[in-house]
């Protein structure tokens, strides 16, 4: 037998199964809920400026989520997804990256996009699918994307971004420009075949990609205890030969620290890294969901005590980098801003009829041109039936 093909282990002569849970997985924790630091903890690279930027991002995140759920309830918006209770995972990890690193997210990582600087009105334009939406009003709310900010447009089919991230990062490596890709996904999406393909290919082809799993305990109504039998997602890293770390996902300093270390490892060694951030989806899956159908208020209350934003606030105040006055002021201002932005975005025109035919191909095919021409003629005949586009037909 060949030691090249596998790591030569002990020879045994009696049956001895490797236990399904034989890897002990430690969890990185730096910040306690009261804002104090664990003894001996290694802090991430962070100064007041970065900390403030992170905290303001968290605040923006919380307010946007809150307001958009309200807007959806009022019937102004068709759909929304919050990241209530798990904001630290996306914001803390994004804060560890270079702006040139690519972000390939699942959908609950608006925090990373906020950190990159996506503007309030850009969020709004996307959600109201108006003609200023970078995505041209084609996808459901929350499917953001920005080339300028290196944030890949969200795609609804789950898991597809995982092998894509391996390929993207491989391309970055070929270019040699010292950037990497971060790929976010939920513990649910990690059951897709694309997860397996993506992690294995990244390992084999030595792609500098950070696979960041947000393990928030649920995939819609399915608890993680019905999603897998292994020890979380981190336990899978071993099977791919990928360096792996588990962090407390509600601990912004631990997330930041782990991601800083992961980025360094990925770029210096042309190698993938797995991070599993443990958290809890405090809100509904989306505005179409009602968690009371599958879990108790008590369970939710228990996890609410681990609020990551409050935890960071406690630390910021202890650092004397933040105070209650600032807190009140920023939340008030953010609420006003968001409300004002909704009012602006919801009345902006929808994209034109013509734009529906763009971007299917780089250049429309003859068939598409014919379909557009026919449709224009039809709408001109029945303008009242097509109020969204009839008024602006060219």
């Amino acid at each position, binding site marked *: 037998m060949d030691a090249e093909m596998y790591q030569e282990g002990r020879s045994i002569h009696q049956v001895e199964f490797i236990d399904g849970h034989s890897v002990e997985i430690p969890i990185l924790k730096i910040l306690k809920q009261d804002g104090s630091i664990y003894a001996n903890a290694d802090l991430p690279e962070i100064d007041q400026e970065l900390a403030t930027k992170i905290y303001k991002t968290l605040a923006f995140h919380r307010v946007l989520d809150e307001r958009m759920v309200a807007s959806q309830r009022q019937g102004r918006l068709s759909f929304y997804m919050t990241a209530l209770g798990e904001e630290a995972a996306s914001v803390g990890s994004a804060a560890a990256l270079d702006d040139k690193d690519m972000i390939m997210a699942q959908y609950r990582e608006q925090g990373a996009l906020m950190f990159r600087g996506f503007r309030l009105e850009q969020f709004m334009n996307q959600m109201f*699918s108006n003609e200023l939406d970078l995505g041209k009003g084609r996808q459901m709310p929350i499917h953001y994307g920005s080339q300028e900010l290196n944030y890949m447009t969200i795609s609804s089919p789950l898991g597809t971004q995982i092998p894509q991230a391996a390929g993207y990062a491989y391309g970055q490596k070929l270019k040699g420009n010292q950037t990497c890709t971060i790929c976010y996904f939920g513990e649910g999406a990690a059951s897709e075949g694309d997860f397996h393909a993506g992690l294995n290919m990244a390992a084999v082809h030595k792609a500098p990609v950070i696979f960041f799993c947000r393990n928030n305990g649920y995939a*819609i109504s399915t608890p993680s205890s019905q999603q897998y039998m292994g020890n979380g997602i981190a336990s899978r890293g071993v099977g791919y030969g990928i360096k792996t770390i588990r962090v407390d996902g509600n601990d912004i300093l631990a997330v930041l620290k782990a991601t800083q270390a992961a980025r360094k490892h990925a770029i210096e060694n042309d190698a993938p890294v797995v991070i599993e951030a443990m958290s809890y989806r405090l809100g509904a899956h989306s505005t179409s969901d009602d968690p009371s159908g599958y879990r108790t208020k008590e369970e939710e209350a228990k996890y609410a005590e681990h609020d990551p934003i409050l935890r960071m606030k406690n630390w910021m105040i202890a650092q004397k980098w933040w105070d209650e006055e600032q807190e009140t002021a920023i939340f008030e201002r953010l609420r006003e801003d968001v409300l004002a932005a909704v009012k602006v975005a919801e009345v902006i025109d929808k994209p034109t009829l013509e734009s529906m035919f763009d971007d299917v191909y780089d250049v429309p095919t003859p068939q*598409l041109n014919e379909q557009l021409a026919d449709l224009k003629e039809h709408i001109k005949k029945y303008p009242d039936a097509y109020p969204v586009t009839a008024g602006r037909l060219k």
Partner: protein
Amino acid sequence: MAKMNLLQAINNALEIAMHENDSAVCFGEDVGHFGGVFRATSNLQEKFGKNRCFNTPLTEQGIMGFANGLAAQGSVPIAEIQFADYIFPAFDQIVNESAKFRYRSGNEFNVGNLTIRTPYGGGIAGGLYHSQSPEAYFAHTPGLKIVVPRNPYQAKGLLLAAIRDKNPVIFFEPKKLYRASTGEVPEEDYQLPLGKAEVVKAGTDITLLGWGAQMETLEKAADMAQEKGVSCELIDLRSILPWDVETVAASVRKTGRLLINHEAPLTGGFAGEIAATIQDKCFLNLESPISRVCGLDTPFPLAQEKEYMPDELKTFEAIMASINY
């Protein structure tokens, strides 16, 4: 008889099927305790236990692989794919495996017990990935059956037939009708035939053919045409594969004209197959070209969904164009 919406009719069919056969098993993402994101499997776990109605991990290829194995073993899997837009990771398991299982083994093995349920179509502001109508992707696959009901009565009778049919069946449910479509449905067991179209309304001037949620559109268009003195024969194809060539051809031989309507994009859609077959079978009867009123050849858009859809106005215009050809 009871008044049911389409979801209730489906739930009722599932309950009957699970009741009559101990080895019938329902599963898919969120299908268990929660009853599915549309609640089609509500209460089944309570009634039949966690072994027979359960959540799966989030993997469509796994769901269909598991279902194929379960069917080969002799159980009766009824698998749900949460949205038809997410059926593609399972494409290999369905097209290369389910469809060819019996043939490749010389009937040593088969997965004829398999039923796949999945909500399809537009109408819920779902954009690219919560609106697709992928029936034509599967219709090129000998070995599969494909069924689409248009209302609660049809849904119950066709679903029971699909579950009992000895071939793998994909059952596409028009999700925009889940709650919107209601009607009288017998509480007892009944079946409607697979592979048979239904003439919903007789007419003399043109045949209108569709399936699923688009049947409503065709009805509206037929009413508009009626006002212009045009008599439309309305046919619900019901089974896309195998499809009922004879009923359609007989109608076209009578009316001399055919219009086919589907939500999926025009190019490569199943209307092409129908048109190609009918122009062959009814060449000398046709008084105008067979007309296809379909989705546009773009991905399914969000903001301009109304513009994208093959609605009653577009259908009406096409009827008149055909009549005045």
